[in-house]
């Protein structure tokens, strides 16, 4: 649920990175944090286990310039991907204005991707988000690894709605900002529609 502050002329939105364990959600945020200009970013918070797995969430606030005289602020969150953290995942997903599903392109993770996407649908329904109407972007990550599925196969398995998908290597930053930019555009367009545009 976006928070539009007319007094401060600010639009605040929440973007959630979802996906199976170890698919690279935290790596996406880390890359954005490293590369964003100091003025545009706040602190990155990671609530993680001792082995660097996300325990509750990662959080990164980011400003992306102005639109129509309003400042835009995006709150980026990642969920914990490990199956047994489902309760926490649901809490983080709540109120999302857009969801980025990070898939792990490795063949060995085929089933994990499908299971996580299924879990996303269920959790969206349970938290009052319409899975078919909420802005949604797919990222096919880890394209640098040897045993990856083709984009066609990934689309066939994960993308029946035909939403935009982006290939990425989050570890080196390939596709990371493209994914975020595209998501922000889809989100703002959707928000404008919800708020009632003049056309």
């Amino acid at each position: 649920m976006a928070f539009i502050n007319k007094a401060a002329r600010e639009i605040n939105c929440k973007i959630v990175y979802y996906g199976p364990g170890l698919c690279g959600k935290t790596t996406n945020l880390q890359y954005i944090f490293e590369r964003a200009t100091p003025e545009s970013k706040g602190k990155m918070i990671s609530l993680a286990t001792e082995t660097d797995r996300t325990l509750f969430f990662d959080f990164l606030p980011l400003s992306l310039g102005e639109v129509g005289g309003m400042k835009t602020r995006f709150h980026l969150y990642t969920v914990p991907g490990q199956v047994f953290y489902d309760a926490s995942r649901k809490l983080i997903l709540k109120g999302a204005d857009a969801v980025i599903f990070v898939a792990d392109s490795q063949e060995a993770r085929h089933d994990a991707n499908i299971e996580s996407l299924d879990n996303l649908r269920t959790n969206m329904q349970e938290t009052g988000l319409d899975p078919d109407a909420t802005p949604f972007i797919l990222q096919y990550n880890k394209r640098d690894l040897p045993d990856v599925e083709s984009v066609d196969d990934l689309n066939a398995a994960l993308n029946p709605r035909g939403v935009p998908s982006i290939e990425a290597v989050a570890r080196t930053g390939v596709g990371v900002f493209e994914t975020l930019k595209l998501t922000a555009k889809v989100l703002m367009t959707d928000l404008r529609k919800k708020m009632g545009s003049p056309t």
Partner: protein
Amino acid sequence: MVNPQMVMYEEEFNQIQAVVDRLVREANAKVVFIVDKNGQLIAASGEVDNIDTTSLASLTAGNIAATGGIAKLLRENEFATQFHEGENANIHIQLVGNRVILVVIFDSKSSLGLVRLRVRKASEELSRIFEALLSKVQEPGGDSPFAEITDEDIDNLFND
């Protein structure tokens, strides 16, 4: 609409700011801030320059979400109040109208009793303001802040 957007207007914003400004003084607090349940900072007052309010907002919302989840498992109503005592700083977290979170950070210059008392009064005022705000947002025909935003504006958002 599944999720009505939260819109803050100048009038209510000033009223809310006045409540937190007064709460800082009357509770002898260091910092007071208000966050929505999604972790968006709504207003802050006090020694905010020495403190990362954005991070605090996100963490308190996460905290409230987690304890809310625990409450649900126990078939409890949400735990509306939390208090954490540190060596120097103490933090009092109050859920207001099940919608926003009122956070008071204070040290030995104040006391839990005083903070509780002042928070109770402020919560009632804030509840009223947010109720009024919500009915205003749901009124049809309000001017959309997006009225002047074009596709091009959105495209340009990132081209820095």
